[in-house]
Each structure stands twice: as C-alpha cells, then as structure tokens.
C-alpha cells in the first residue's frame, strides 16, 4: 500500500524548467517531509483556458 498526497499547483510563469525548479524547492522546503517522504514533480504544460463564465 502506498499512501501520499497530490498537490495540483498552477504557476503564472510559462517557463517549464523554471516552474519545475520552483516546485522542487517548494516540495523540499515545505510540501514533503523528506525524513519519511519522497516526492516527484511533474510539469504538465499550460493550464487549460478558463471556461467562459456562464451567463
């Protein structure tokens, strides 16, 4: 059994490499406790355009 958390994080800056570095830092500093947890960062590309507001 594996148990963990998934964080979906949107980053305004479009640069994938920069986004990955930022997210790795966030994971190391806060999101994961590396004494007992490991983590994987995946950049999935630009977020889909927000759907137009329904009237």
């Amino acid at each position, binding site marked *: 059994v594996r148990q963990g958390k998934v964080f979906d994080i949107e980053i305004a800056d479009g640069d994938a490499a920069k986004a990955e570095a930022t997210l790795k830092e966030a994971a190391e500093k806060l*999101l994961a406790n590396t004494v007992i947890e490991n983590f994987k960062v995946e950049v999935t590309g630009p977020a889909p355009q927000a759907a137009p507001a329904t009237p």
Partner: protein
Amino acid sequence: MKAAVIVFPGSNRERDMARALTLVSGRAPTMVWHAETELPAGTDLVVLPGGFSYGDYLRCGAIAARAPIMAPVREHARKGGLVIGVCNGFQILCEAELLPGVLQRNASVKFVCRDVHLKVERSDTPFTRGYNAGQVIRVPVAHGEGNYFAGEGTIGRLEAEGRILFRYTDPEGKRDPKANVNGATNAIAGVLNEKLNVLGLMPHPENHVESVVGCTDGRGLFAGLVAHFAQAA
C-alpha cells in the same frame, strides 16, 4: 528566569504552560504571538506549547515551523539559548529542523490520552537537573502523532551522544513494549539537539506541577531550569 511562550493559531496548552512556569519560577512568562518577528529582550527560555497549530494542516507543526517568530527562535537556539517544545511544540521543532527526526502517527493509529512513566536518562542538562539520572516520573500524554522516528544513523548518533533525555518505561524504569504508548523508536519520548540546549518531548510535564491534580512529578523540569538560571546569574 525570563520565559517566552509562543502562541500559534491553534495552540491550546499555552495557558497550562504559563501557569506551570509562573507557579514554579514565580515569574509569569511573556506570551508571544506567532506573527511577531522578535523575542522579548533578555529571554532566557523559549517554550513552544502543545496544541494543533494551524489545525495540523499539511503535517503536524509544518506550517508553524515556518511562522515569522521561528526566525528569532532559531537565532536564540543558535546562540545557545534554551528552547523546549512540548507535544505539538516538539513536532514544530522537528519540522523546523532544530531537532532531528519526525513524529509519526501512533502505532495504535489512535489518539492516546493518559499518564505514562518516563525514565530520565541523565540529570546533567539544564532541563533535568531537578531530577536524578535514572529516576522514573509520571506525566500525562495526549497525542495522535507522537511516534518518534528517525533514520538508523540518526538514532545511533542520538544514543551514542546521550541525546535521548526521556524514554517511555514501566513504573520501575524498565523498557516494556506495553509502556511505549505510541510505538516510538527505542521508546524515545524526548530528545535533545547536538548542543543540548533544545529539547522536544511528547509528554506534558506542565500538567503535573500541583498536588491538587495528584502528582507533581513534572515540577522537577521547571525547578531545574530555575536553578540553572539562578546559578548562571
């Protein structure tokens, strides 16, 4: 002894702590809000009390460890100032990396709230000079995540350097799996940092300082600290 008790949103044992400090030292501590960026001038002792800081969101103590007040607390510790974290305070100190390891969910997966026996492993620290080495004290615990864990190398170092200050034992001071309330590695209840000036422990000595509650075994910790600072002055 000038003590400062740090109050985070969700702390709930800060008043017990303040009461114990006032009773034993004769001087009320300053209550310091988490958003402050400095400690009161001349603070001797910083105490991180129990509770559920920031609702235990993300992980116990994780967000509190990054609160603004933790920068001066870290600096106080770096300069050799004394710091105690009890229960959630212990979790915060681990998350802040002022102490090694982590507090995992209790092995029973249940919240445990009862008296436990602790063996005081050494008496030559400011925190335990009010006790004898090997003495067994009775104090309460109340936690869901107090199962101390660290890598094998870290545990080996803690043992070799005498940095395990309190261990869960039976009333005679013997190791007993049944006495290890949360399944902690090597029955660890309290640990010290490398310089022996930062202590984290899961049990609540502040709740056993008045005879009206039936036990005063926690008093020695505070009395020892008072003696430590009286001697230093």
